[in-house]
C-alpha cells in the first residue's frame, strides 16, 4: 500500500515536471528573440548609417527565426489562399514579408529607451498568447500581444495585436476588399508597387 503510494507520487511528479517547464516555453522563446533584437539595436558598432544594411540583415535573421510569415500570409489572404498555386503562394509570402519589413523595421529601429514588460501568457496547445506592454520614455503604455503556434519544439508568432488591433485582421480586410473589387493579380501588383 505504502509502496504503491510512493510509486504513484513519483509518477505524478514525473508527469508534472515536463508540463511545468513546457508551459512557460512560448514566453521564454519570445523573450529570447526580443532580447536579441534589442541587443542588435543597442550595439554601438552598428549605429553608423553605413552599417544600416548589415543591421537590417541581422534583424531580419533574428526575426524570421520567431515569426512564421507563411502562416501570417495565409491567414491574411484567408479564403483566397487555397485558390493560389504553390508558386503564387511562395511569391505572396515573400511579398508580404517584405511589406511587413518595410512597414515595421524602421519603427523597430527607432527604438530608444522603451521597456518591455512581459505580463501574461495563455497556452492552449498548439496555440499560445503572450501579452506584453511596451513602456515608452514618456511612460505611455502600449499593449502588444503575440499569438503563437507550436511548430515541433518552436513557438512561432503568427499574429501581433497592438492596442487591440490585430495585424492579420487589418491586412485580411484590406486584401479581401482589393481582391473583391478587382483581382488577386492587382493585389500583387499593388504590393509590388508599395514595396518598391
Amino acid at each position: 500500500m505504502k509502496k504503491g503510494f510512493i510509486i504513484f507520487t513519483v509518477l505524478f511528479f514525473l508527469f508534472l515536471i515536463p508540463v511545468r517547464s513546457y508551459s512557460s516555453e512560448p514566453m521564454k522563446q519570445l523573450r529570447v528573440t526580443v532580447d536579441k533584437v534589442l541587443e542588435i539595436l543597442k550595439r554601438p558598432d552598428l549605429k553608423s548609417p553605413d552599417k544600416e544594411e548589415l543591421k537590417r540583415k541581422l534583424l531580419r535573421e533574428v526575426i524570421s527565426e520567431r515569426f512564421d510569415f507563411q502562416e501570417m500570409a495565409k491567414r491574411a489572404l484567408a479564403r483566397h489562399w487555397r485558390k493560389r498555386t504553390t508558386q503564387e503562394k511562395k511569391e505572396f509570402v515573400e511579398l508580404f514579408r517584405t511589406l511587413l519589413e518595410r512597414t515595421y523595421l524602421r519603427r523597430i529601429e527607432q527604438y530608444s529607451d522603451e521597456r518591455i514588460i512581459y505580463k501574461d501568457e495563455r497556452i492552449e496547445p498548439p496555440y499560445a498568447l503572450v501579452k506584453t506592454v511596451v513602456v515608452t520614455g514618456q511612460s505611455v503604455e502600449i499593449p502588444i500581444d503575440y499569438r503563437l503556434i507550436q511548430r515541433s519544439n518552436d513557438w512561432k508568432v503568427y499574429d501581433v495585436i497592438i492596442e487591440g488591433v490585430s495585424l492579420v485582421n487589418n491586412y485580411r480586410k484590406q486584401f479581401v476588399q482589393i481582391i473583391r473589387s478587382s483581382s488577386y493579380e492587382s493585389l500583387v501588383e499593388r504590393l509590388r508597387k508599395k514595396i518598391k
Partner: protein
Amino acid sequence: MRKIDIELLVGIFVIAGIFALGYISVNLGELEVWGKKGYTLYAEFEGIGGLKPGASVEIAGVTVGKVKSIRLTRDYTALVELEINNNVPLQDDAIASIKTKGLIGEKYVEITPGGSEHLLADGDKLRETESAVDLEGLLSKFVFGKVE
C-alpha cells in the same frame, strides 16, 4: 342553429387572437420555442466595451447570428457565447472583433472569415479575437504622448 354559428365564430376569433398574441410575443421577445436556430461558438475578449446579450453578429454587415450570453472568466476576461446561423460555416482562423455602429452607436460582433480547412463545430472556441477599441484610452495616450 344560428346562435351556435355566432358563438363558434367568436370562439374561432378568440383562438386566432391567442395564437397571434403568442406569435407576436415569441417574435418580439426573440424566444426560442422551436429549438436552436444555429450553432454555438465561444469567444474570449479582453474587453467588450458594453456589448449586450442579443447584440448582432455580422459578416460584411449581414447579420448571421447573435450574442447569446456574456460572462466573466476566472482570468477576468469576457467569455461571449455566440449563436451563429447553421448556413454560415466558419473556419478556425476566423477573427471576431467588437465594433461600434457609427461613432457612439451600439456594440456588435464582426467576424472576418478565415481560409483554414478546419471548420468550427458547435461548442468550439473562436480563438482569434479583437477587443473593443478604447477610444478614450487611445485619445489620452495620444494627448500624453505629445506632452514632453
